[in-house]
């Protein structure tokens, strides 16, 4: 078990900066998810920690130990690869035992460890199976067992669930979460799926274009996004141009919003979650329903406003049909004010 600390880590490929000055501290036994769209640098960051890529600047510390200059071999992070990278010519048992060679265990102890980790991932008795004959979910668990067998300091998981079909994904996610909590290992997980990150991680790191946008618990990311990107990437949000008076009165889409001005004045951007607006017969916001997206208990209606902007409203199923002209009102909360981009 150990802590992971990144200090101003930067990486560029050629002239393209992929990771920009990321600093981050992960506590012992914590499970952290690196969340971002493709191209956000999350996989590169993971590979920098593993030692498969060398940083251009910054430091990486495992357990307070500066490993920046060390090779992947010396760092010995456990890694679960996106496509698992199981050795196709070795059996399940041989794959799991591969990382135990350096420990100079006698044969009995090695076999015992293999049996133990396979039992941990619920694959007891699979030692002699060919890895190519396993289902996707089973392969994923073999990859996990193989990474855990040498008791690594840190476990790194590169989109571990992306290779599974959706019906399997949720169950596997649950199993993965239970397993990681049981072993108590410090883990870093890369994913582009917000639901996966929220469900698995203690804390989530949101990355965008190589920048660390925000780090926090899922609740904090949702209720107090630090940047417009986090607000719109984590959960849904509509962006509206807003004006802020010197007294801190925020106006957007013809309505006043109960939101802290945070010192902004003049033009700004307001990001509003669907639950931050509701239909109201005499509301100050007027728009035409252009899209409806049914999501069970609620229906998300997108209103086109007179000024060309759109706003999404969470409504009850019977509230409006496409083409209706409706009125709405800020519901209070679930709206965030940011400086106008470029200012």
């Amino acid at each position, binding site marked *: 078990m150990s802590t992971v600390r990144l200090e101003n880590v930067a990486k560029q490929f050629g002239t393209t900066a992929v990771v920009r000055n990321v600093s981050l501290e992960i506590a012992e036994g914590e499970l952290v998810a690196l969340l971002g769209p493709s191209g956000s640098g999350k996989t590169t960051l993971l590979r920098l920690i*593993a030692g*498969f890529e*060398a940083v251009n600047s910054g430091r990486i510390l495992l357990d307070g130990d500066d490993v920046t200059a060390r*090779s*992947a*071999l010396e760092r*010995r*992070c*456990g*890694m679960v*690869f*996106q*496509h*698992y*990278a*199981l*050795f*196709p*010519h070795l059996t399940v048992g041989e794959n799991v035992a*591969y*990382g135990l*060679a*350096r420990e100079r265990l006698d044969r009995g102890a090695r076999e015992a460890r293999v049996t133990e980790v396979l039992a941990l991932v619920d694959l007891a008795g699979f030692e002699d199976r060919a890895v*190519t004959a396993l289902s996707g979910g089973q392969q994923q668990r073999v990859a996990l067992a*193989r*990474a855990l067998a*040498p008791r*690594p300091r840190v476990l790194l998981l590169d989109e571990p669930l992306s*290779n599974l079909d959706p019906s399997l994904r949720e169950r596997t996610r649950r199993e993965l979460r239970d397993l990681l909590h049981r072993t108590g290992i410090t883990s870093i997980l890369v994913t582009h799926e917000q639901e996966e990150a929220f469900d698995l991680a203690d804390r989530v790191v949101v990355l965008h274009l190589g920048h660390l946008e925000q780090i926090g618990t899922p609740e904090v990311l949702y209720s107090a996004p630090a940047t417009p990107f986090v607000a719109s990437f984590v959960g849904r949000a509509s962006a509206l141009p807003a004006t802020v008076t010197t007294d801190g009165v925020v106006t957007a889409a013809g309505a006043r919003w109960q939101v802290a001005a945070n010192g902004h004045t003049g033009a700004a951007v307001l990001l509003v979650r669907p639950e931050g607006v509701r239909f109201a017969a005499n509301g100050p916001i007027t728009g035409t329903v252009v899209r409806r997206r049914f999501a069970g208990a609620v229906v998300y209606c997108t209103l086109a406003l007179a000024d060309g902007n759109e706003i999404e409203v969470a409504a009850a199923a019977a509230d409006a049909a496409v083409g209706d002209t409706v009125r709405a009102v800020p519901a209070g909360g679930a709206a965030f004010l940011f400086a106008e981009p470029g200012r």
Partner: protein
Amino acid sequence: MRRTVAWLLLLVLAWLVVEPLVLVAVDAVRIDGMWTLAAVRTFLTEPNEWRAAFNSAWLAMASVVLGCTLGVALGVFTRLADFPGRRVVAALLTLPAVLPPLVGVVAFLFLYGESGVIARLVMLLTHSDTPPWRFEGAAAVLLIHVTTMYVYSYLLVRGALATFDPALLEAATALGATRWRALRTIVLPLLRPAIGNGALLTALSSLASFSAPYVFGGGFRVLPTQLVSTRLNGDIGIAMVETLALVVLSLTALLLASRLSGVGTRGAGKGLAPRPGRSRGPRRLIFGTIAWLVTFWLLLPHLSLLAFSLARPGAWVKTVLPTAWTLQNYTVLVTDPERWRPFGTSLWMATLAALAAAGVALAVAVAARDGRERLSRWLEGGLALPWAVPGTVYAIALATMFSVVQPAAGRFILIGTLWLLPLAYLVRSLPIVGRALVAAIRGLDPALDEAAASLGAGPWRAFVTVTLPLLGPALAGATALAFVTGLGDFMTSVILYTYDTRPVSLEILGAIRDGDLGVAAAYGVALTVLSSGAFLLAERGRRLA
């Protein structure tokens, strides 16, 4: 309709590919119209005969062991080790693949031969007037085999590593494996199919190898040279038994190789070649020195060939390198009609054979498109058969086949005419062209044909407007390969040529016999340039597509 065409094609292949071999087998046990095992008995009891078979077998094994070791080592090294000029070395090492076989062999004469560069160097250093060695016998042949045939394993291993999932290596590293352990436990086991194919190609080439033992064998006889001399002596029956013995050895190699197949190298990853490991300072320098030295050594024969072609006759007597340079050897090729004629002959014969082979192979590939049909498998087998049978054997088989008039059996007199050599080149290149086209056509999405049909294109229009353009690059590449095979061919030509159809390879041999080493070298260089040109054109076609 389609099935009728397929059956017709099968008949063509049976006539061109199978019947000649059957006639050889029959001739082995039927002498002067009588069925007899006399020739087989002679072959089995005569120590000389045995020795040739034994020599062929151990030479093949030694070539496989040494050639594959060299090829695999270079393939892995140029992909996974980091040193200055890695890409250049990797490209240079493929050069022996474009050398026509006889040229590749003759080049060794200029380096290791009695008046070659190395011998001169030794003479100069020891102040001796006599050459230190005769470059002859088993060791000479083996050296040539190893330094030319490594290229099969080299190319196959590099190809396999190009699609090797880099995550597999990273996984091994993350699990604490050193580079050496990862190489031993992950890379090499996964390269097994590539290494097996390389071993098979090396074994078949060594068994079929004619140029090297013919030029440098001396008293060292192997089956291909033995059967040619037996045939010249008029012992047709024994020559046929020797031919069969060679076929049996080749089939044994095929059988052994088929057991070597294993798991492929393709992981589920993005299919990027693994990047070479980062090495710094002295290690990088040592790697680089080794790589460049080995490359230099492997290319030295060809550099000597080039040097000889540019040496002024008489200006290279006592020195290691020529003292005066000239283009005279090349101007002779162009200005002397007798020297120029073999070029024209080789060119038209190789072109005709390549086009015809491409046509036959394309028709067969289209007919055999559905690999699950039994008829398709037969067609494929017919295309592939000449691959397993040494070229010398085919030459003799075709000579036998086309020396009698028996229209019912499809036999005519072609021996002594202009047409036998192109036909032989065609048969020899069928497997190469066929494999490429069958693979290419099976790689096409069948939905494309269905799409064309749904848009109102008949089968012919769909073929011409969709299938053929998509096959273009493969077709160009395969035709170029067939052209190069015919252009440089020696082992078939030496058996089937007439004075009027003597190709460049025989002219090279003649020039060496006459002592015109400079002209022989110039022929060799010119042939190499032509072959490389054909390869480059095909490669360019592939890129444009």
